[in-house]
């Protein structure tokens, strides 16, 4: 909530209050992760819930380091929103199933598949953050707000480039993660393909992002529409991924 006010104020001043709020949350988060780690006698990165929270923890840690430089402290406004949504996402049902005696991601191929998909979602998430920065700054420039000139945000052209690069990176990782799926299905069911809601959903997401990139390369799609598509598609993933995971038979036999 505090970050929303900071966002409205513009990004001109480093804000210690926001920094210390994130620092306090980080301390609590670290304590919770340590507690969980001791309770399961392993590093707490065994399922999607833990993996999401681990990524959130690394983002918070990175921000706290960047935030030591007062010119970069404004990034906390974006980091806190991202961390909040990741926290909400992690609380969705089915991401933290009751623990079995063996870790969920015990196989190399499964671990690689999960890691690639998670990294891809991370890249899409960061691209969405760059898109939000772009939309904020673009709006300020359009309506001639003083904060457009005063803010510490990078130039919109650079943000667009960052958005694009992260999307390319995300699609590449997502493709690699998806490419492993047939091997996993064959290991488990003896067939190369098994119809599954999460698999269909993943293919839809993959096609959507691929389409987004093609429309940019082929038709010069850029600027505001590109940024809106990037931000909205990530919000869509955040809101729907858990639902399809819940429906999936392959991931929860």
């Amino acid at each position, binding site marked *: 909530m505090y970050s929303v006010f900071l966002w409205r104020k513009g990004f001109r001043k480093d804000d210690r209050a926001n920094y210390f709020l994130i620092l306090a949350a980080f301390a609590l988060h670290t304590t919770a992760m340590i507690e969980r780690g001791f309770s399961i006698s392993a590093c707490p990165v065994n399922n999607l819930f833990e993996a999401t929270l681990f990524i959130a923890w690394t983002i918070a840690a990175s921000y706290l380091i960047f935030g030591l430089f007062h010119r970069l402290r404004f990034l906390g406004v974006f980091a806190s929103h991202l961390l909040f949504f990741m926290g909400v996402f992690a609380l969705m049902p089915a991401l933290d199933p009751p623990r079995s005696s063996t870790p969920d991601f015990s196989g190399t191929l499964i671990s690689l598949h999960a890691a690639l998909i998670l990294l891809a979602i991370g890249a899409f998430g960061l691209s969405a953050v760059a898109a939000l920065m772009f939309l904020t*700054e673009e709006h300020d420039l359009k309506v001639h707000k*003083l904060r*457009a*000139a*005063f803010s510490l945000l990078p*130039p919109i052209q650079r943000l667009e480039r960052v958005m694009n690069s992260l999307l390319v990176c995300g699609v590449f990782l997502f493709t690699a993660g998806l490419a492993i799926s047939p091997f996993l299905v064959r290991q488990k069911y003896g067939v190369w393909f098994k119809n599954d809601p999460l698999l269909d959903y993943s293919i839809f997401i993959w096609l959507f992002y691929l389409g987004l990139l093609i429309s940019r390369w082929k038709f*010069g799609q850029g600027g505001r529409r590109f940024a809106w598509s990037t931000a909205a598609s990530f919000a869509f993933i955040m809101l729907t991924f858990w639902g399809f995971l819940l429906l999936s038979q392959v991931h929860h036999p």
Partner: protein
Amino acid sequence: MNVVVIGLSHHTSPVELRERFAFAESKIPAALNQLRDSGLASESVILSTCNRVEIYAATALLPAKAFSELTHFLVRAVGAGFAPGPKAIYTLAEPHSLRHLFKVACGLDSMVLGETEILGQLKDAYTLAHSHKHTGARLNKAFQRAFNVAKHIRTHTNIQRGSVSVASVAVELAQKIFSSLAERQVLVIGSGEMSEKVARALVSRGVKKIVIAGRSLERAELLAEEFSGRAVRFEDWAGEFGNIDIAISSTSAPGYILDRAKLEPLMKLRKHRPLLLIDIAVPRDIDPAVNFLDNVYLYNIDDLQAIADDYLKQRKEEIRVCEGIIDQKVSQLRNAECGMRIGSTPQGVPRAT
């Protein structure tokens, strides 16, 4: 030993008067020698810029006596032949002299509030005096502290943030849109004084390619030569839109020379690359409706002036914060010096309480 200041600045005297009392840089070492030889000051620094002429001196004389002697010295040294009126010259003793020095270093006493050029000029003046051994414990400490305070204020306040001129605001906006100005191409339509200023400001920030379209091709060519750019006929400016990134327009046309219907197909040619339009003309050259197009950012003279005014307003709001910091730093300096003097009191002499 008291640190005193006498001087004239843009606050107290017009340029006609300031120029009569200005020191040529080559004459400053001799003037500093005279100050020491006459017993007026054991340490001194002379700052002479287009906006101020000031003598900072550490002297054993009482302030009133020092001010009168330094004023006579100033008149003699520059050969002005007359003394400036009491309102034109200011005289300050401690702690006001130190506060003034700190304010000057921070740009709080400058014509353009918060500007940084004065800090460089002050450093040069100090270095000159220091290299000729005209500074000692008092002025060294005072000037070093002034430079530190200026750095502190630049880092911790917004006094130097933003641009307060229309041309600089235009450059700043361009930097918010484009990753690098060095590869950007600028089109100047009409060769008015303000568009020239904006173009010059852009060139100073790295722009290399400038195209000038003027009704008088001869004048456009002259201007293009100055910017190492090229000139085109006024009728041909629209043909350049495929390549340019920034357009500055200041023609005397009675109506819009660029509207949405004209720009829309041109934007397709540009493959939707961002375009910054700066319309400095009155009446305006560019239809405000073009700002509704994607990737087009239009600013007219009022928009730029409003941003410059807001910046200035924000700088003024920071003055109180800066003065608070300066007061604190002056007290710290004086307390430290006082402590050192007490610490160096000879044995047997009771210490001041």
